[in-house]
């Protein structure tokens, strides 16, 4: 028995042909030609921005079409809803985990919620992206797409863009719930504190209320959530790269799980490799390989300190975001390089 959702996914896997072909129609209309005879004059119409067939070498519109289609396809996956639901349940449930003093309660709420956002967005990034290329090959939709004037790199960018949009939706949903829960708890604690301290001097009441506000909702959480998103995007880009040479979905997921764990220890391996010169050469080569090949995922882990209310300078956020973008760009470029040579 086939799963209806899977069936609908497969039929939707081929991006809207009219959208992709509309550009070619526009080219034909402009030249007043029949598309079938276009190849004969291809050489004449070739310009730096167009290929020998008269199509744009790089078209954001084509990428957007594939991206939208990928997003539609991914949002119909049950795994997306399961992961999102688990994430949302964990965030909502963290309120009931334990009742301590307000500082302890807020710290636990933030730790658990941001931790849930981090793990579920990472899982979603890996699981959703790992299936994109193998599934398209299995369903043979990739042949329909690449038979149209869609360069392989655009196909990859569109696929990755769809996965990143999905991650953005998941992070936004989890953030909205987390911030709402925190806001509601903070106001409830503020009211409780104000009531308890009604007879205390105004200075003491203000200090107590200030302490509650400092432990609760603060703007520092926004960059932390952004970093969680960038980490998930980096994992998605790396997963896409692995899936360009992997043959099955499960292989990609397994490789990425290992990468995830090694990535969190890469910093330790790198520092040991850079500073510990007493180790034997086998150890040093091993550490060098780990340091050079794997991303430093621990650098993106600001959740622990943000939950404690420690001020993290925007400069640090900026550096981490820039490093994340750099990783994403390089992994996507390498995915493009491998995929362009892949025999389909």
């Amino acid at each position: 028995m086939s799963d209806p959702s899977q069936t609908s996914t497969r039929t939707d896997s081929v991006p809207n042909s009219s959208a992709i072909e509309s550009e070619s129609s526009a080219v034909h209309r402009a030249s007043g030609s029949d598309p079938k005879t276009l190849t004969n004059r291809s050489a004449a119409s070739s310009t730096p921005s167009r290929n020998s067939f008269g199509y744009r070498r790089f078209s954001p519109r084509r990428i957007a079409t594939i991206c939208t289609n990928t997003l539609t396809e991914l949002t119909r996956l049950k795994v997306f809803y399961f992961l999102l639901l688990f994430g949302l349940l964990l965030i909502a449930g963290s309120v009931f985990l334990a009742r301590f003093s307000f500082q302890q309660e807020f710290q636990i709420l933030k730790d658990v919620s941001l931790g849930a956002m981090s793990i579920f967005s990472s899982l979603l990034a890996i699981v959703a992206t790992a299936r994109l290329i193998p599934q398209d090959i299995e369903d043979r939709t990739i042949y329909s797409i690449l038979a149209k004037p869609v360069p392989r790199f655009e196909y990859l960018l569109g696929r990755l863009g769809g996965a990143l949009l999905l991650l953005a939706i998941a992070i936004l949903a989890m953030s909205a719930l987390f911030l709402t829960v925190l806001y509601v708890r903070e106001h409830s604690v503020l009211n409780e504190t104000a009531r308890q301290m009604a007879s205390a001097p105004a200075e003491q009441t203000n200090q107590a209320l200030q302490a509650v506000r400092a432990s609760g909702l603060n703007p520092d959480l926004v960059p932390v959530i952004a970093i969680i998103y960038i980490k998930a995007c980096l994992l998605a880009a790396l997963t896409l790269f692995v899936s360009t040479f992997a043959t099955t979905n499960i292989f990609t997921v397994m490789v990425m799980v290992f990468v995830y764990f090694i990535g969190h220890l890469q910093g330790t391996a790198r520092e040991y490799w850079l500073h510990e010169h007493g180790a034997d050469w086998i150890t040093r080569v091993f550490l060098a390989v780990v340091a050079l090949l794997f991303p430093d995922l621990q650098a993106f882990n600001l959740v622990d300190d943000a939950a404690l209310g420690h001020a993290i300078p925007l400069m640090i956020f900026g550096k981490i975001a820039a490093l994340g973008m750099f990783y994403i760009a390089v992994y996507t470029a390498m995915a493009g390089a491998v995929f362009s040579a892949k025999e389909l």
Partner: protein
Amino acid sequence: MKRFLAVAIILLVFGAAKVPAEHALSLSQQRLRLTGAPLNLELRQQLGQLGFVAAFSGFRAVVADLLFIQAHVAWEETEWGRVLLLFRQATTLQPRSVLFWDMAAWHMGWNASVAAMNDPSQPRPALRVKTQREYLSIARDFLERGIQNNPDRPQLYESLGRLYKEKYNDHLRASEYFAQAARLPGAPSYDKRFAAYELSYCEGREAEAYEALRRLYDLGERERLPTLITRLKVLEEKLSVPPEQRIPETAKAQ
């Protein structure tokens, strides 16, 4: 094959380019104490394999919170050894959490130490006192290590001051820690007063304490609290301050 080799080389070249950036970022994070627990065998032994893996997969804070909740449950069941073990693990994982250090010290210094003195299973008072001292020493150790990891936060200095004041009756050290807390940003306004109060109990430091209390008194009505006035009057007597220099008799004492 050639393409895969090319990709491997690109990966290594990319690695060589990214390592300095990662190292610089890591140094910036270390300077700001954002790097968390160091990876070593002691931590591995403390946490067990699963906890260790979880802690280094980006869930250090969550694992520490779970240990903290377990410690809370162990406290409710008055399993002091377990409370100590769990707090050691939680503080090792989250050394920047002032709350964990403070709670660990409070449980050891105020709960476990009192329970040790009232332990019906220990008939010898000397051994009860010995156990109590051990718990107090553990509480002090938690606070001192907490301060080493969070030198910029006033709460732990304040807690150490309170421990010296209430458990060791060491007013001089209590005063020093309250004064250190008062100097840090975000310290509550009472830390300055507490430092002066504690100094007023120290033999030979009365003049200094009187000056500190008087300075606070002169700040205005907000600082003229009953304890401050009482301590000032005690010191005026002790130091034989001339009547014209004393605070008015109408000032409310506790």
